[in-house]
């Protein structure tokens, strides 16, 4: 700071010098026209006036001491006064004393007019302040001129001196102010101020180097190297190059941003603004500047940028997510029902491009007429109760398709509890609805299966239970005599019902095995024709019991590599079905073989299967059955198809209502034919 102050002193004198030079040059103008006060009532005053005028001096003549004092008191600016010693009513001495009492007379050079016999005094009041010259009469022009010139020169010098003194005072005051101000700024600022003498390379810093950057005080006077070394290595080259350009070029102002090391090793991000002082040849001699630490600001900017970026990314993510999830966001301003919605919203209502406006009427117009009142009521209730709602409704797209949407909204209230907004989302629920209906259908099918299963299981159980009770009665002593005769028949029936029960249980086990993928095939080589004959023989009594007949049309053995037990099951299921739906008409079975395929058909002459049911019957729990045609778990054909598919075979049905059904089984033989 000392050096900085010195710099000001060194800098300012040049200005001060200029000012002083100007003041000297301008001074004659200050005193022009020179005025002199003449106080005399003698006749030769005219001569005196003439002499003054010759010298370019403007004389003012008064005849009495009072007038003279009055003129001086008026503040007229006289360069000198010429006073007669003999004045009426006032002695010469008294007048001089009066003049010296005046503000403007204190230092006024005086000429004293002496007549031939006048006493020559040697001392006058104020002689130490201003010269006093005696002018003798009769007037000798040369002498008078000489005296006047002397007096005026003296005054001129005095005034110049005064001016210079005043100027110097002013400058010193200004300098002191400036230096004080500089010191205050240096202390007040957190900026790092430097003064770099480019000739000696000395650099002086303000206290910010200690206070803000943590360096010890002895570094306040260091050199260029200190500064240079504390610039971040990555910035050093760039800053140094810019500085070289500055010092070598015509510019005075400089600005650079770089990282400046703190005492703790961390770096401050600074902006350095400098000013170069040059000598008359344009060579840089000093550089002054302020280094501002912008780390916090930069950090804040970075944080803000990051935050903005995060927000933007969040927005983007949200938008992508809502788009992917087919979710639209909307907001209703309640007072006027103006509706804001995001770009996804209108798409959910079938508009690829957003509509120019969306109102409640727009919404309701899109909603399926059957759902419209419900949607309106749900919203109204939410507003009324300041609550929320979630509902699903159908919308009609402009292309005529129907879509399910799920919308949920929540009412928002102001401080007074008035509902001001409903905010919510809407999403496509078409798929969900489809799954829901599939699930409902699956549950329905399962429930129906359970109901059928329990009936199917109870029927043989009921029969067995009855037969057992009847046998018990028949064996009691008081039974009718012929009752016992029926027992063998009843036992046969029981046997049949138990088998039936076992078959049902097997079917149910197969279903769960199939569902778990645990139905394994045990392949062996056998003749399908032979198996068909065997099954038909086994089932014939049962079939004939319901008044039907069974026939087999098979010309030759059809050998293949299959699971005998499972193919047996296929035949039993198909024949049981044919018997159940064959309405007592003949059932025909055929077996044919090709080199690679076996083909088995079962034809009944029953009620047939409607076209729309023909695929459904192969599904689990499905039957054509209504109350009018019960029987079976609805598992038979499902199991058949699964078994055949495990053999890489197939089954299909050809049928029409009232014309019976033809089930056609195709089985790859698995091994080369005989």
């Amino acid at each position, binding site marked *: 700071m000392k050096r900085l102050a010195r710099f000001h002193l060194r800098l300012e004198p040049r200005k001060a010098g200029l000012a002083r030079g100007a003041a000297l040059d301008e001074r004659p103008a200050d005193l022009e026209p020179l005025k002199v006060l003449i106080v005399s009532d003698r006749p030769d005053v005219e001569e005196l006036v003439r002499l003054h005028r010759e010298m370019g001096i403007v004389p003012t003549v008064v005849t009495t001491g009072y007038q003279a004092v009055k003129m001086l008191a008026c503040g007229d600016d006289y360069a000198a006064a010429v006073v007669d010693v003999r004045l009426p009513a006032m002695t010469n001495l008294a007048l001089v004393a009066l003049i010296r009492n005046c503000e403007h007379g204190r230092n006024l050079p005086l000429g004293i007019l002496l007549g031939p016999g006048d006493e020559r005094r040697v001392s006058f009041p104020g002689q130490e302040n201003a010269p006093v010259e005696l002018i003798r009469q009769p007037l000798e022009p040369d002498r008078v001129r000489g005296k006047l010139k002397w007096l005026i020169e003296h005054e001129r010098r005095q005034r110049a001196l005064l001016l210079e003194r005043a100027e110097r005072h002013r400058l010193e005051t200004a300098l002191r102010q400036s230096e004080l101000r500089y010191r205050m700024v240096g202390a007040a600022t957190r900026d790092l101020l430097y003064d770099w003498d480019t000739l000696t390379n000395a650099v002086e810093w303000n206290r910010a180097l200690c206070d803000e950057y943590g360096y010890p005080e002895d570094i306040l006077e260091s050199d260029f190297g200190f500064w240079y070394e504390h610039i971040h290595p990555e910035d050093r080259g760039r800053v140094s190059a810019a500085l070289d350009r500055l010092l070598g070029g015509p510019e005075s102002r400089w600005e650079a941003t770089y990282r400046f090391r703190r005492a703790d090793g961390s770096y401050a991000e600074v902006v350095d603004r400098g000013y170069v002082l040059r000598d008359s040849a344009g060579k840089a001699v000093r550089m002054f500047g302020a280094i501002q630490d912008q780390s916090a600001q930069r950090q804040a900017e970075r944080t803000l940028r990051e935050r903005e970026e995060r927000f933007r990314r969040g927005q983007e993510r949200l938008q992508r997510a809502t788009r992917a999830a087919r979710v639209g966001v909307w907001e209703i301003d309640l007072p006027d029902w103006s509706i804001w919605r995001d770009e996804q919203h209108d798409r959910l209502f079938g508009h690829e491009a957003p509509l120019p406006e969306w109102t409640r009427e727009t919404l309701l117009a899109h909603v399926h007429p059957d759902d419209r009142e419900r949607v309106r009521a749900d919203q109204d209730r939410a507003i009324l109760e300041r609550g929320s709602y979630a509902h699903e409704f159908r919308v009609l797209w402009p292309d005529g398709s129907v879509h399910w949407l799920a919308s949920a909204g929540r009412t928002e209230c102001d401080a007074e509890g008035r509902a001001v907004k409903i905010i919510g989302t809407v999403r496509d629920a078409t798929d969900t609805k489809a799954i829901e209906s599939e699930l409902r259908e699956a549950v329905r099918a399962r429930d129906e299966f359970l*109901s059928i299963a*329990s*009936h199917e299981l*109870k*029927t043989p*159980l*009921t*029969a*067995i*239970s*009855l*037969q057992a*009770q*009847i046998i018990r*009665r028949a064996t009691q002593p008081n039974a*009718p005599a012929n*009752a016992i005769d*029926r027992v063998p028949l*009843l036992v046969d*029936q029981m046997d*049949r*019902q138990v088998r039936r029960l076992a078959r049902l249980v097997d079917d149910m086990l197969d279903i769960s095995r199939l569902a778990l993928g645990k139905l394994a095939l045990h392949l062996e080589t056998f003749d399908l024709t032979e198996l068909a004959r065997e099954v038909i023989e086994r089932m014939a009594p049962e079939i004939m*019991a319901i008044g039907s007949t069974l026939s087999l049309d098979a010309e030759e053995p059809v050998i293949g590599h299959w699971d005998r037990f499972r193919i047996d099951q296929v035949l039993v299921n198909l024949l049981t079905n044919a018997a159940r739906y064959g309405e007592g008409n003949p059932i025909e079975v055929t077996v044919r073989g090709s080199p690679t395929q076996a083909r088995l058909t079962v034809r009944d002459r029953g009620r047939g299967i409607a076209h729309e049911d023909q695929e459904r019957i192969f599904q689990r729990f499905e039957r054509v059955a209504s*109350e*009018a*045609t*019960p*029987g079976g778990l609805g598992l038979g054909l499902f199991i058949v198809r699964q078994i055949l598919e495990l053999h890489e075979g197939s089954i299909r049905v050809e049928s029409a209502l009232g014309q019976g059904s033809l089930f056609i089984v195709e089985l790859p033989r698995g091994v080369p034919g005989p």
Partner: protein
Amino acid sequence: MASPGRRPLLLVEDEPDIRNSLRDLLADAGYPVLTAANGREALECLRTGAERPALILLDLMMPVMGGSTFLERLEQEPDDLVAIPVVVLSAAKDAATRHPATVGRIEKPIDLDELLDWVRRYCG
């Protein structure tokens, strides 16, 4: 061995083993039994039968015409037929068990003593 003078009862059941067993048992107990394998046969029997049954034992799940449909059709018949009491043979409670004509329900598997109680009550 039907007792003379008793009005018959009508047994409607699709499962032959059950139907035949019950018929034999009731006949042994002295009740004349008419049988039908489904609702349609039962209606035929009521319309053409010489004697109006004193009681109908009705299974519900049957092919061609089930018990519930039979009860609905029965309402369209002359009053004397509508008035016949019905005991439902059913594994589960059903709308049919609440039908005005239904006076009772026997759960399957059927308990013969319970069945005979109902028969005695309505057929003497």
